[in-house]
């Protein structure tokens, strides 16, 4: 054993793999699938702030994701530039998240879940029914992707790299957040809200700020989505989309960094790759979820770590019998 630890090696290999995806995948369809995994991973990481660290299960996050995509799409259609549309989308999503938070944080647990569900449904209703604004079921199309620093993102590979940069920024931010005093405060409100208040913390404000932080990364994910598809329609804001991203978080492992990323990968691969071979791909996805919940109730990533550790101990115990044990 030299000074290189296994997690570091894994991290290096993963980073190398991610940066070379367009080289070894080749087919632009699959490069696009990789972009979607990353953008949904950003979305899942955003939701994980509330679900994992805050203990607040939201079923309205697809609404925030859609607000961002729609705002950007509609502003671009109205003739605004990309920079203005992106800033507008982020601000609009933050505003919506603030309204969501003020209404939903009157409660926790099931109450919080039901209020976010209702608010998400209102946004879906707006996207679907307010056709004058949102173009209803036909959705909103945009004609161009932005070209930051003069680099065109029109191709699948260049868009993938842009998404990767944003994804890595999200991962770095989430890591810093989880390790920070504020992250510890948020986890404290999840585990012992009452004690936190008695210790001098403003529990409501901590949750509110966490909601805004989550909303910010939802808006970034929503922007990546509309630029990736160059199209957005009401189904993005539907309850099923909220449930899907929640399943990404829960199946991968809440309150972990890798969990939501793994969850996003599973769902997106099922949706865009397996669906090409299996018509009832959602059935396969369901079976996978049931298997994860049965064998790794804590989620795929922490569950795998646990089982790997268990297997390794067993393997070592078998190779080296304990001293004094009968031969």
């Amino acid at each position, binding site marked *: 054993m030299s000074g290189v630890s296994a997690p570091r090696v894994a991290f290096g290999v993963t980073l190398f793999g991610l940066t070379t995806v367009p080289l070894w995948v080749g087919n632009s369809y699959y490069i696009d699938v990789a972009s979607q995994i990353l953008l949904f991973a950003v979305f899942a990481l955003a939701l994980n702030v509330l679900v994992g660290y805050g203990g607040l299960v939201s079923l309205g996050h697809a609404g925030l994701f859609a607000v961002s995509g729609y705002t950007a799409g509609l502003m671009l259609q109205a003739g605004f530039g990309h920079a203005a549309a992106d800033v507008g989308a982020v601000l609009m999503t933050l505003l919506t998240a603030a309204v969501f938070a003020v209404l939903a944080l009157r409660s926790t647990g099931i109450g919080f879940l039901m209020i976010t569900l209702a608010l998400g449904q209102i946004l879906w209703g707006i996207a679907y029914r307010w056709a004058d604004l949102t173009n209803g079921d036909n959705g909103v199309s945009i004609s161009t992707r932005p070209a930051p620093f003069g680099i065109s993102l029109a191709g699948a590979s260049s868009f993938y790299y842009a998404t990767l940069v944003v994804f890595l920024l999200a991962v770095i931010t989430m890591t*810093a957040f989880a390790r*920070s*005093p*504020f992250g510890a405060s948020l986890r404290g409100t999840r585990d*012992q809200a009452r004690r*936190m*208040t008695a210790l*001098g*913390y403003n529990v409501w404000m901590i949750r509110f700020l966490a909601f805004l932080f989550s909303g910010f990364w939802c808006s970034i994910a929503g922007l990546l989505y509309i630029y990736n598809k160059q199209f957005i329609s009401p189904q993005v804001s539907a309850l099923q989309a909220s449930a899907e991203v929640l399943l990404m978080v829960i199946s991968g492992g809440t309150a972990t960094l890798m969990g939501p990323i793994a969850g996003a990968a599973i769902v997106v691969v099922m949706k865009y790759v397996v669906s090409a071979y299996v018509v009832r791909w959602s059935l396969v996805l369901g079976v996978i979820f049931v298997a994860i919940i049965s064998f790794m109730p804590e989620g795929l990533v922490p569950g795998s770590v646990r089982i790997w550790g268990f297997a390794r101990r067993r393997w070592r115990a078998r190779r080296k019998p304990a001293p004094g044990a009968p031969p």
Partner: protein
Amino acid sequence: MTALAVTGLTKSFGGLRVTNGVNLTVEPGERRLIIGPNGAGKTTLFNLITGELASDAGTVALFGRDITRSACRRRAHLGLARTYQIITLFPRDTILRNVVLALLGLSGLRWNPLVGLDRQRHLATRAGEALARVGLGHIADRPLTETSYGERRRVEIAMAMAQNPKVLLLDEPFAGLSIDERRDVRQLLAAIPRDVTIVMIEHNMDVALDLADRVTLLHFGEVIVEGTRAEVVADPRTREVYLGE
């Protein structure tokens, strides 16, 4: 100036008056013991003093400052700390992290999303000192789930003491402890310096009697007897409440 002054404090749950016009005056540095049978309203009184429950009537003042309308979290910043009868700790963290959270609660650092909490060595050092004072310094890094009930009681006290409170409210600090553990906790409480005012609830009067300067007997939400140890023990109403004579 009195450390803690409670006047006419009243709280009802539906038709039940759990706290009924309670008056309580605790001098700085005093050790006050509040006793009373089950359901006397002892813990409710604590919840009203800390602001975890809102009172229906009456006032609470901390060192002359009216805090009746102050939020619970605000009172912590004004120097009020408490422990819980039902242990209320952070089960997923280590003992040390529990105490660090107590320290962080009064620090502006708690809003910081950028720096690493583990890098704030001064918090860990102070938390370690607080744990050493309650005799848990050697197991500071142990996860809370791997600690005994008696150790958790002491973590409760360490968290409250780490906040450097002016007034410390202890809700049955001896509940559920063995005889040896009780002795340790009693020594621990006796060693708390007199610049901390202590109000302590106990269900069993004999457990903590020798720690108290004055004793208040609470029954059905009202103060029945108040006085020095000897006065309260000798009072026939105390015998009546406790022995039903």
